[in-house]
């Protein structure tokens, strides 16, 4: 609003030479400015400031001197760091894989649905809209020994089996909670892609005698590839940042401490801005690195997809 009232007054002079008010070129610069300023101040600056902080030694919150690369050496020699790298990648690979298998299944079912499409599209948004902390609490209480709902429903599982207090099974519970919430969301994205595939192509394939599996492999998959790759990029990067589920379900215990949980520990619980910033900078490099690798692969594939 401020822009509207100010600019016509200040820009009166050049108005005569061109059009009225700001030229489109000036308006473009004014319009991107607030977003650029926000991103520089609240996103770029903290990343750079964290690199600066990571070069100093701290005792609690008190700076005790320049540490050089000391914090990074400490990070790389700390088995806890490597454990959380492993936990983060195990979580990412497992959750993204299952989300895509189940999400693809759901999308195919919904695309073939002969009734209640509107109802099911609304239903599928429910796990997505329930905040992650809430689904974390929900699945914590379902997996937990008391009241032991999961144990009572599953056959062959002893009533006192402690899912969340057992290495590997704690990770399984967290992956499960994530897949529950996100597979429907992936289905939604894939469904949007499926609906852009012309029905004629399936008809043609059917006339040529292609089986359902052949139609899926030679019509659906290639045409859905761009949608799959974009969804895969965002899901993978999102999974690498996972914090809410392990923080609430296990507090990072039993091999579920992901990189985000690790960094957060060094801010509040055991404050060390130096080491914490070193961990956060490494996390940033890992996540953005995976993202960049994806985007470069994606860019090429999207171009190829358009040429075909």
């Amino acid at each position: 609003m401020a822009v509207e009232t100010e600019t016509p007054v200040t820009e009166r002079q050049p108005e005569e030479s061109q059009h009225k008010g700001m030229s489109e070129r000036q308006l473009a610069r004014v319009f991107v400015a607030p977003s650029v300023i926000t991103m520089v101040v609240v996103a770029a600056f903290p990343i750079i400031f964290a690199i600066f902080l990571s070069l100093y030694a701290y005792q609690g919150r008190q700076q005790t001197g320049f540490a050089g690369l000391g914090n990074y050496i400490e990070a790389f020699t700390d088995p806890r760091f490597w454990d959380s790298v492993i936990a983060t990648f195990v979580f990412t690979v497992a959750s993204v894989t299952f989300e895509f298998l189940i999400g693809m299944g759901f999308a195919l079912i919904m695309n073939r649905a002969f009734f209640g499409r509107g109802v099911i599209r609304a239903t599928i948004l429910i796990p997505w809209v329930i905040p992650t902390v809430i689904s974390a609490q929900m699945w914590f209480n379902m997996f937990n020994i008391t009241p032991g709902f999961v144990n009572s429903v599953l056959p062959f599982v002893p009533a006192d089996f402690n899912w969340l207090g057992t290495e590997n099974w704690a990770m399984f519970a967290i992956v499960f909670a994530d897949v529950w919430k996100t597979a429907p969301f992936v289905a939604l994205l894939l469904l949007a892609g499926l609906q852009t595939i012309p029905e004629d192509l399936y008809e043609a394939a059917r006339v040529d005698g292609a089986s359902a599996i052949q139609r899926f492999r030679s019509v659906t998959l290639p045409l859905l590839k761009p949608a799959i790759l974009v969804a895969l990029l965002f899901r993978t990067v999102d999974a690498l940042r996972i914090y809410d589920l392990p923080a609430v379900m296990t507090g990072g215990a039993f091999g579920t401490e992901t990189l985000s949980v690790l960094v957060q520990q060094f801010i509040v619980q055991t404050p060390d801005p130096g080491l914490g910033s070193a961990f956060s900078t490494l996390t940033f490099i890992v996540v953005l690195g995976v993202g960049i690798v994806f985007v470069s692969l994606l860019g090429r594939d999207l171009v190829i997809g358009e040429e075909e």
Partner: protein
Amino acid sequence: MSEPVTPTAEAPQRDDQPSTSPGNGGSAGAVSGADSTGSRIAKTVMLLIIFVWCLFPFVWLISTSLKQGNEALGDPNMFQGPFGIDNYRIVFGEGFLYNLRNTLVVATFTTIICVLIGAFAGYALARLPLKRKALWLSGVLAASLFPPVALIPALYEVWRALGLLNTYPGLYIPYVSFTLPLTIFILVTFFSSIPPELAEAAKVDGATPFQTFFRVVLPLAAPGVFAAAIIVFIFATNEFLIASTFAPRDLSVQTATTAVAFFTGATEFERPIGTITAACVVISVPLIIMTLIFQRRIVAGLTAGGVKG
């Protein structure tokens, strides 16, 4: 609650879908000769699986939240009573209304600021002459890949120095920066879909570029702006990492997600299942109702931001 999602309400809304969806419906009819009763049953069963997947855990949550007394709450049987609303009384007795208010305030500020500045940037990137547009868009994409946790150590130190810990701006300022990239993507898609002829016509009629944006393009893009606003609002109510780090305990700022995560019973390690599930239901129900009402807008926004990237 089911009113906005009945199939009849859905039918006339199909228009904005790609033309293949009615085509699919038609083809289902066309092949119905080959479509045996068996395959119809199979399809119904598969649809039911999706319904159960999405809804059952929430039904369990509601049933647990209504159980009264330790005996019922400790019983794995969903239908083991007695049932009542005691847990809800306890939740609101612990000041949960403050948490809900805080979430509402933070989410509203985030939404207004983010959509306002995101709409400006989205319009500039979609329609205005700007050098190196591809570079700008890659910058937005790169920003959307940032891990929030990487901002936390530095922001915590800065917020501490500025006195922004345990304040509303301390939360909604970082939220805006996290939601801005997605907002810009969604709005670029929507602004690009508006015919450029309309803006041209406004220009011929003597409108300034700003008037063209504000009076002509923005009203036409209102559905897209609204879709972006809902998605940003949901993100802000969902956020936990920043909320729990920058405003962990102070009840006048602590958000609902933080409260739910930190509910404790008599001892610090006890988790009172009844009050936690009741609080979870209290937060989820308004969000679910909102989703059911605005589902078409949300799906349009998510696919605009996600699939077209």
